C-alpha cells in the first residue's frame, strides 16, 4: 500500500506539472511561434510589429467572438462577413450625407443586430439549420451591400469616425482598445452571467435546457443578434481603419472567424468554447499571416503553410485535452 501511495504521489506531481504545461499550452505554442519568427525575421520582434499584429487581429477576433457565442449553442454563423459589409456601407452612406458619427455607429450596430435577429428567428422559430439560415443571410446581406452602393466603395472622411480605426489612445490603437473591450465584456458574460451559463447549457442539451425552464428559443435569437451586433462592431472598426466602406469587405472572413473559435477550443457540436481560446486562435492565425508576410514567403506557399499550421495548432491543443 505504501508503494502504491508513493507512486500515486509521484504521479500527482508529474500530472501537476503536465497540467500546468497543458493549461498554458496556448501560451507555449504562441511563444514557440514568436521565438521562431524572431529568429527568422529581424523585423518581427518589435513594438511596432506587435501593435501591427494586434491591430490586424482585432477584426477577426471580434468576429471570432461572435462565432464563439453562436458555436457554443451548437449553431454556426456564416453571415458575419457579409453583415460586416452591409453594416459598413450603410454607415458609410449615412456619413456621406454629412451625418453625425455617433449616429453612423449606431446605424452600423443596428443593421448588424437586425440581420442577426433575422438569423436568430430563422434558426429558433422557423427551425432552420443554422448553416442554411446564415448561408442565406450571407448571400442576402452581401447582395444588399452591393445593391445600395452599386458596387462602389464608399469613402469616409469623418475624422471622428475614422479615429475609431486609425486613432490611438496612449499609443494603443483604437481597434485594439475596442477588441479589448469586446474581450472583457464578452468573456464576462460567458463566464459570470446566467445568460452565458445558459448558452453552454443549451449547447450541451437543447431538450434538457428547455425542460429546466430555460427559454431556449429566446436565448438563441438573442445569441444570433449578438453575433450580428458584433459584426456591426467589426464593420465600424474595419471601415474606420480603411477610411472607406467597400461592399466586398469581409469576404471569407467567416471561415477565419470560425477557425479562430475552433482553434481556441470551441466545439461545433456545441457546449464548448472560451473567449480567451478564441483570442488565442485569432492570434495564431494573425501571427502566422504576419510572420509569413515578413519572411516574404510567396503567396502560394503561404496558403500551404497556413493550412499546415492551423492543423498543427489544433492538433497540439487536442493533445492537451487528451491529457487533461
Amino acid at each position: 500500500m505504501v508503494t502504491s501511495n508513493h507512486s500515486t504521489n509521484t504521479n500527482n506531481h508529474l500530472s501537476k506539472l503536465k497540467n500546468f504545461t497543458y493549461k498554458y499550452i496556448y501560451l507555449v505554442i504562441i511563444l514557440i511561434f514568436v521565438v521562431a519568427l524572431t529568429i527568422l525575421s529581424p523585423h518581427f520582434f518589435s513594438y511596432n510589429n506587435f501593435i501591427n499584429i494586434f491591430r490586424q487581429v482585432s477584426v477577426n477576433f471580434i468576429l471570432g467572438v461572435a462565432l464563439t457565442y453562436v458555436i457554443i449553442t451548437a449553431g454556426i454563423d456564416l453571415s458575419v462577413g457579409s453583415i460586416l459589409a452591409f453594416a459598413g456601407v450603410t454607415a458609410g452612406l449615412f456619413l456621406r450625407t454629412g451625418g453625425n458619427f455617433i449616429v453612423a455607429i449606431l446605424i452600423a450596430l443596428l443593421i448588424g443586430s437586425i440581420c442577426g435577429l433575422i438569423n436568430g428567428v430563422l434558426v429558433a422559430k422557423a427551425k432552420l439549420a443554422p448553416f442554411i439560415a446564415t448561408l442565406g443571410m450571407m448571400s442576402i446581406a452581401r447582395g444588399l451591400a452591393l445593391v445600395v452602393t452599386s458596387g462602389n466603395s464608399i469613402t469616409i472622411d469623418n475624422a471622428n469616425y475614422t479615429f475609431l480605426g486609425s486613432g490611438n489612445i496612449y499609443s494603443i490603437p483604437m481597434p485594439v482598445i475596442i477588441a479589448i473591450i469586446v474581450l472583457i465584456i464578452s468573456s464576462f458574460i460567458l463566464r459570470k452571467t446566467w445568460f452565458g451559463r445558459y448558452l453552454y447549457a443549451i449547447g450541451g442539451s437543447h431538450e434538457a435546457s428547455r425542460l429546466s425552464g430555460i427559454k431556449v428559443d429566446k436565448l438563441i435569437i438573442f445569441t444570433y443578434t449578438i453575433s450580428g451586433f458584433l459584426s456591426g462592431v467589426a464593420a465600424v472598426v474595419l471601415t474606420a481603419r480603411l477610411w472607406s466602406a467597400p461592399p466586398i469587405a469581409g469576404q471569407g472572413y467567416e471561415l477565419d472567424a470560425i477557425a479562430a473559435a475552433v482553434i481556441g477550443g470551441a466545439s461545433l457540436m456545441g457546449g464548448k468554447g472560451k473567449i480567451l481560446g478564441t483570442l488565442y486562435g485569432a492570434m495564431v492565425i494573425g501571427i502566422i499571416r504576419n510572420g509569413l508576410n515578413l519572411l516574404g514567403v510567396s503567396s502560394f506557399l503561404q496558403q500551404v503553410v497556413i493550412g499546415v499550421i492551423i492543423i498543427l495548432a489544433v492538433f497540439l491543443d487536442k493533445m492537451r485535452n487528451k491529457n487533461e
Partner: protein
Amino acid sequence: MAKVLQMKNISKFFPGVKALDNVDFSLDSGEIHVLAGENGAGKSTLIKILSGAYQKSEGEIFLHGQKVEINNPIKAKKLGINVIYQELELALNMTVMENIFLGKLPLSNRAFGTVDFNKIYQETKNILNKLGLDFTPNALVGDLRVADQQMVEIAKALLGNPEILIMDEPTSSLCDSEIERLFTVMNDLKKADKSIIFISHRMEELWEVGDKISILRSGKMITTESLDEIDENGVTTAMVGKEIKNKFPKQKLNIGDEVLKVENLSSNKGIKNISFKVNAGEILGISGLVGSGRTEILRAIFGADKIEEGEIYIKSKRVKINSPNDAVKYGIGLIPEDRKQQGLVLDLNVKDNITLSILKKLAKSGVLNEKKMKEVSKEYIDKLSIKTPNMNFKSKLLSGGNQQKVVLAKWLCAKSNVFLFDEPTRGIDVGAKVEVYELMIELAKNGAAIIMVSSEMPEILNMSDRILVMHEGEITGKFKAEDAKAENILNCAMGGELSGNK
C-alpha cells in the same frame, strides 16, 4: 461447474476517482450472476472493462483459464461477450433490424457488399416474436418508446449466441410483463449453459432470476454468495453498509388545500379527457402499462407538449402553461424518465445542473452568484448524498443513479411545490430509494403536491395517497391507497372495468 470467467485484482482509476479497487470476480457456466451495489459502486465500470469499452488500470482477466487482453469491443465480441449497456447505445436514426444487426450485417452479395435486408427482416421478426414485441423490424428506433428501445438493445445482445451476456440494468425501464419475458429468455440461455451477469436495483427480482450475487461497495468487492444463502436484508446491509429498516417510510400526513387540478386534458400525443386533482401534502401515484400515456400527462402539464384541450388550475386559479418556462414559474418541476437526454446537461458540472433552473434568480443584475450556487449545491449534494468527487465534476461522469439525484436536486432547490416524478427511482439503489422516498415525504410535509408515475407496484402501493391507473391514454381506475390492491390496479391497467372507489 466450469469457471468461464475470472477477473483478478481489477483496479480502475479515473482522474480523481478510484472506481475499482482490487476487485475479484468469477463466473461459472450456466450461471446467472447478480452484480449489486450502490450507485457509483463501480458495477458499470467493472463490466465495461470486461466488454472492452474501458481499459483496466490493473489486474488480469482469464477466460476458460486463459489470460486475455480485451482492448476493444470488437475483441470482446470475438471472445463471445455481449453487453447490454445501462445507457442505451443505439443509432436512433436507423431501423430496429439494422440496429440489431449493427456491426454484423449479413450480405446478400459479397462482391457488391449489398445487405441482405430480407434475411435481417425475417430474423429480426423471429427475435421480436420470441420477446413478444409488436413493432415491426422496419420501425425507426428513435420513434420507439424507451422501453421498446431497451428491448431492441436486449434483442441485439442476444444475437450471435454469446457465451457471456452482460446486462446492465436491463429491467429499469421495462414493465412487469416485459420483465417476465426477459427472465424466460434468460432462463433459456442458462439452460443452454450460457453465463449471464445481471445488474439491477430492483431487489425483489434478484431472487427470482439470480443464482449468485456479488456485492460492490465504493469500488471494493464486499462479498460473493449464493442467493439461497442471503436475504434482502443481508444484501442491502452489504451494499449500503448499514441495515435498512423501513423500505417505504410513508407517513400519514394532513392533506391540505388543492394545489393542482387538471380538467379534461387531451393532447395530440394520445391522452384523452384526463381529470384529477392533487392537494398539498399528497402523493398521487399514476400506474399503468408502458405506453399508457403517463409520461404524456406529465409533459402536458409541464408545457413540454402542446395541450389540445383542457384546463389546468393551480391553487384553484386557471393558468395557461405554454412552455416549461411557464410551468417552472408556477412552481412545477419535472423529473423526466430519460435523465440522459432530458434531465441533465451532461457536459455541465454538478453544480450548474443543480442550479440550472434557478440560475437567473440567483443572479444579481445578470451576474451569477457563485457563492450562493455553491451553497445551494452543497446543501443538496449532502441532503441527497450525491456521490461526486466535487461539485465541479462533469455530470456525464457520474454513475447513473447519482445523475438521477442531481435532477431531483435541481427541482428541490427551485423550491417547486408541484413535483412531477416520472419513474423517480429508476436506476437508484436501495439506500438512495429510501432517501428519495424520505425526500418526497419531506416535500409533502412542507405542503408540496406530488405526482409520481411509476411502473413499480410496491412503490405505487406503498408511497401513494391516491392512485390513478391509465390505459391507452385514459384513466381507467382511481383508488385510495388503503383500498388499492395490486390485482385491481393491474386489471385496470389492462383496460378492465373501472373499479375501486373514488
